[in-house]
């Protein structure tokens, strides 16, 4: 076995120091070491986006990033998006507009939408569709996901207090 490496990662505002194999994927680190199972694995080859999390403020596909690459960094996952017990406006949008069915792609889709709205708070439908082209949903046909992001965009522009969690 390869020698383990010690990494320090801040996830959803909480710092963790862990010994990991250098080959361990970030998504396995989040899911199996930290028990944050909200981030999913859909394709293993970075096409589907079910594993999208924010690393140092940018959306990444955590199935093709090594845990050691996150050493010293800050990660935001679906579990840390909203304050305890509450919903982020994007989560509210997905619920309100029926933007999910089986829910498996949803955490990644929400995190990708988070990145999209951070860079472009008022996207057009075309911009939303292009912005989410790295995420595959097999259930919804994307129409209600577009509506969910539009809804979130409106909520976020009318709400002065959009939660800005740590890690971003």
């Amino acid at each position, binding site marked *: 076995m390869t020698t383990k490496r010690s990494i320090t990662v801040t996830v959803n505002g909480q710092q963790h120091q862990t010994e990991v194999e250098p*080959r361990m994927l970030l998504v396995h680190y989040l899911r199996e070491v930290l028990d944050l*199972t*909200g981030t999913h694995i859909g394709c293993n080859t970075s096409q589907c986006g079910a594993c999208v999390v924010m690393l140092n403020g940018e959306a990444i596909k955590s199935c093709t990033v090594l845990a050691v690459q996150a050493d010293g960094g800050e990660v935001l996952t679906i579990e840390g998006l909203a304050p305890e017990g509450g919903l982020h406006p994007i989560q509210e949008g997905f*619920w309100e507009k029926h933007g999910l*069915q089986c*829910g498996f792609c949803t955490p990644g889709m929400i995190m990708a939408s988070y990145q999209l709205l951070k860079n472009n708070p008022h996207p057009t439908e075309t911009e939303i569709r292009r912005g989410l082209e790295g995420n595959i949903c097999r259930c*919804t046909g994307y129409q*209600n996901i*577009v509506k969910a992001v539009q809804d979130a965009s409106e909520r976020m522009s009318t709400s002065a207090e959009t939660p800005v969690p740590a890690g971003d």
Partner: protein
Amino acid sequence: MGIAAMLGTPVKRREDPRLITGQATYVDDIKLLGMLHMTVLRSPYGHARINTINTDAARQLPGVVAVYTAQDIKGTVGNIPVAAPLPPHITSGMGRRLPLAEEKVRFYGDPVAIVIAENRYIARDALDLIDVDYEPLPVAIDVEKAMQPDSPILYEEFKTNVATSMHPSSEQIDKIFADTVANGGVIVKERFVNQRLAPSPMETRGVVAEYRKSDKALSLWSSSQIPHLLRNYLAIQLGLEQNQVRVIVPEVGGGFGCKLNIYPEEALASFAAMKTGRPVKWIEDRDENLAATIHGRDQVNYLEAAATRDGKVVGLKFHVISDMGSYLQFFTDVIAIAFTLPMLSGCYDIPNIYSSCDTVFTNKAPTDAYRGAGRPEATYMVERAMDVIANELKRDPAEIRLLNFVQPEQFPHTMATGALYDSGNYGAALEKALDIIAYDKLREEQKQKRAQGKLMGIGISSYVEMCGIGPKGTTPFGLYESARVRIEQSGTVIVYTGTSPHGQGEETTFAQIVGNALSIPQEKVLVLHGDTDSTPEGRGTYGSRTTSVGGSAVFQATERLKEKMKTIAASMLEASASDIELEDEKFTVAGSPQKSVPFKKVAAAANTSNTLPPGIEPGLETTVFFEPEACTFPFGTHICVVEVDQDTGEPEITRYVAVDDCGKQLNPLIVAGQVHGGIAQGVGQAMYEEVVYNEDGQLLTSTFMDYAMPIAPELPHFELGHTVTPTNVNPLGVKGVGEAGTIGSTPAVAAAIADALGVAHIDMPLKSEKLWRIIHKQ
């Protein structure tokens, strides 16, 4: 929202809060103490003899607990179950297999050995240390070549790859065709390839097995659509009693039919847990999912159609070849026979339908149910036939359809295929779709665009499908559905359903059914599913049957309890039960609104029992098994508009209108979602998706890099409309909508692209390269 208006309203899904916050538990989220991980070694060949397997090095890798091959499981683990084995070959072993290949592998991805290790990384490492000596054999990949006598044979003892061959005499249909020609009519012929697809739910398959040796108790968590069927067949495979096996289906990340199956890994993980005494988890990688989970469709079909000069179709003649792949999974052998053949008249009143059918083994993954399961293939053939006829007669495709539809007053109607259609109004759905899209104006626009050299096309598809299976006798195990409903002392309700959702939102819909029937807020109703120890025996979720069959069981159980509550309320109000009404959470004496008792009080009286009148059994709990007497036939019309880029051949859907009729809509939000997703998958088949094997049997589409499903920018905004034609097949008047979009959309897109290019037919998937070659005659 008024309680009375609860059914038919767009109630937000109660499932969502756990799903949008990452708190849902899918099978890979389950972690048990001492849990081991399983990986599967799979065949790199499409067809090969296994000479030897050496597992010594793998066993010696630190962290590996066990390695098993077919030799280890033989005699302990039974064959993969088949729902409805067809005689003669299949019952004598053709297409049957152990969960691990013995002697021969028959497709790329065929399981050969399993490794059980302390973690998934070690389990994966150990696969590379297993040495299998294969002797590669020639492969049968092309289904029509596989039917030839000189083809390599998958099951040598049967001397053919053809499992069933149904070729009734065609004398009668041939005469009708000859008469049609003699009378000045037309005959059109076409060959259609309905390509092989990968269902590709975003969550792959996965299982966790745990075994308690002391009392032979096996618990299996599986990402499945059929907990009870899985439990029953797994017990047989493992030699356990049914009540020693508990199947738990946690949150499921999509199924689309591919989890309506009993797979090798379910028995293998169970076997490993029984042997090692420790829980075993297996999570399928995507490349395994694309290689070894069932595929869908894969038919080659021949059509001949006879029509009069004025467009009346007088006969259709079909030859259906079903490529079953290498082995029989649960419904592999019956998809074409039971679901394609009965639907070959589509929405049309065609007096003569002839079909012949061959089901054939090839060196590919098994095919089985994928969203629509046999019905999309039928609809595609019939709808393409209508277009080819319209093209031949230079008539508008809408006009040809309207001319041939079964008329509303003809229902219930037995088609020439033998299928009994419950109800329908096909003309109304088509007219509505034409209206929404402003069809005449659109054809004008098309003329203008063509004049400018632009390739605009319009495609119409009027579909009908068969849902809500039952009835009795359709499968050896019965196709009923069940519900146990319990009204508790506090007035809250628990529903235990035998169905098993994987994204359909049935917790919400079922709560609406119960809330509406009991006039209580739907929030007071809890819906539980997926655990065979607590839910009544059910058949699972597939075939768009959950609401029509499972929902009807929920409805009838609730009504039964409501009647009991009325009797109790009558005694409390000193009135006759027949005078008691239930509204706004109160039981009231008809005509005397001041005489009432709250729902909660009656629930408390029933459950505490002391004040119940003599003769009334305490408690409010009942179980209903609902078995439909017939199937339902949802229908609709989809219209697709495309523009194909002259220079690149790239097609773009510019408008998409869908008018669907699924009977009564209990939750229009969920119905629309099902239609959207269904259309997306149907568009996927028409434009992008195709499982490809090369001539050596190697799978070329083994990642999402190569198996292309639609992404957001590739799909348009869908414009939906609906008509409502209730059915009397079930008490809710619902027909089913889970597969409608997929069935309706594929022919509409295919027709639009063919129309854009001015040709009668192009085989799918309609990728830009193929279209560019047609445009540029390359």
